[in-house]
């Protein structure tokens, strides 16, 4: 039933999205932190 090629692609996409979300949250946190200190 599963599409092996697409399954591997899905894992890669989920990892990339996870990493992007972590990086984004870090940037937003830092920016917010700076703003509150300004």
């Amino acid at each position, binding site marked *: *039933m*599963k*599409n*092996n*090629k*697409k*399954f591997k*692609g*899905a*894992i890669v*996409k*989920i990892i990339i999205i996870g990493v992007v979300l972590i990086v984004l*949250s*870090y*940037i937003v*946190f*830092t*920016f*917010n*932190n*700076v*703003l*509150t200190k*300004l």
Partner: protein
Amino acid sequence: MKKVLKKFNYKHLIAIAITLLFLLLSVFVYKNSFIRIKETGYDLYTSFIYNFQTLSNSFVTVPSSVTKISSVDISFVFPIDWETFTKAIELTWKALFTEENLFAYLEKFSDVYLILITLAELILIVVLLLKNAIDKNIETVNTTLTETKPLKVFKRLEDKFKPIKKWFKDFWTFCFSGHYKTIWLFIWLYNLNVFAIIGEFLAYYFYFVASFDIGNLYVQVYKLLFDVAIMLKGLPLILWLILAVIVLNKWRKNKGYENLEHFERYNTGFVKNLPTVNVFYGLMGGGKGQIMTDITLTTNKIFRSNAKETLQKLDRMFIYFPFAVLEQEYKRLVRTRVIYSLATIESYVRKRKKWFERALSMNLKKSARYILYGYDFEKYGLTYDNNLYLQDIFEVIEEYLKAYRIYTTVEMNITNYAIRSDGLLQDVGNFPLWDFDFFTRKSADIPYISRYGKILDQDILRMGKTIKKDNPFANTLEYGIVVMTELDKERGNQFVLQELKAKADDTNQKNDLFNFGLKLDRHPSTVDFKPYMRIYFDLQRIGSTNSDLHECGNHLGVGKKNKKEFAMPLFFIEEFIAGIFDNFYNAFFDKSKYYHSNNTLLIHLIKKYLGGFYNYYEKMYNLYGYDLHFLQMEDMLSGQVTEHPYYLCYKKNHARRYYTDSLVDYFRQNALKKKVGLDDYPEYKGVKATKEEFAMQNSYFQHNLNNVFDSDIKE
């Protein structure tokens, strides 16, 4: 009054109550939106006045308020001017790579990550426990055919919830198909501050085109972010997430359809450029039948589109000619069987031209006008100059009727296997329009909108002798799409044909002039210089049929392809779930089937939800899935082979278009006459077969061996 009350749908009351609730929320909860709308209204007014006064070189009496920030009080931390913003960016860049900041981030988000990790662990533990429980539960043998008590209770509960679920579904359809949807959308666009965002944009636009105040751009960005902040604070995070999922789902589905339509347009371009005769070849199971059928469906669309183009062109030439009257007259002539082919159209129009000329020669202008369907030829003329030659009105009528006949022919597939087509000719009594949308047809409509093609009597392709003596259909083929599968089984190569004689009394492949007809098929089908004849053959080996035949056509090799591609974006979450549970579901299926003949609640739940998910997954593939074929096209002049992509979309091609086992009926009818099947075939008793077992093979080889050894023994 009672009747009116009976007719009144009580759902209106609930919908009105919901509307009132939304309005109350607008008044008591979304107060900031009201302030922002008021401010935006004033910004728009002042910007418009400013714009008008500046552009008309008048004295500016009202300065635009769009440059001022809002008075709404919310907790919003963002630099108010450009200098502070650049400073903040600079400091952020430096802080990004400091240990202190990283630890602060980790400290702040440690709870979130801890929760996420714990959640993942918990899910893992639950899954493992569940798997263990499932294994234990399933691996107990039960051969009774009854359902377990928990399952019965569950089904009873399900039955009780069904009407409630149905009610909510009906209510949803009721609200979203009427005016409530628009009213609610309007209220929530107001509540979530969307109107203010649009209004502010327009206000700045009016201000900017008159002032070119680029310096104020940052304030506008600040105001936009401020408005977005008001919007985001309007709903809890979970509702935003649900809304995002709904919007994304709708977007990806639309995008999926767009992609499928793009593929179909690409295929259409490819099929348009194919020559009249095309031979598809490739190994069994390579997809040549699928491709040929798919191309046939697209050709249907192309022919109707080409015919409509011609009709449009001719219609433009004589704009005062009553073509609608001509079309109605054509319909009457078809009903009375005066017209039933392109030849009868030509004959009829030429006859009418003679009547017209006779009436003119006798100076009967009224009669002449009547013959010309009421067209005022004296005022508007009888010819059209296309800068190449003069086109006579009767020539135009003749071509128009021929193109109209092709355009309105409901079925033009002439095939040796049934092909289902579902193009819809919509007609309200005037000019009909075709609907060839292959991707939005509903499965339930298939029995009511399908046709299965004309039976290919091959005598229509024979210019010489025919199989059926005095066949009334012989020499009647003018236009259409002829599709023949297994050509090599029908028309042999020169080795097969060498025994046949052209001068024989019986019809055979040498005297039926099949190939001769094929080479001339374009001629009777041409209307306005466009041929409306396509011939598609498929076979396994090109060399199995004679070269005079296969070299008439374009060779298209089928077999190279990328299977199971997907046209809808953002499907990876489903792909991930399908991949994760695939092994589990397969093992579950085997075990539950092997150990149980009864049904338990656990088995039912897994089938219902996980099985339901796989049904959804497969349905999505049926809708958005496709195979990307690379057709090998051989240039008949240079012998060079070029590759052409062709998108075989499942929704178009796999919707019971044809049966790959189209000849199965012969085999089934034969098998039904017998009293034995595969189960009754004798089996070998050991790895070394015995002479008696060999004898059961009825093989030429074994028979020869038997003869040789028998004769040795005799000698």
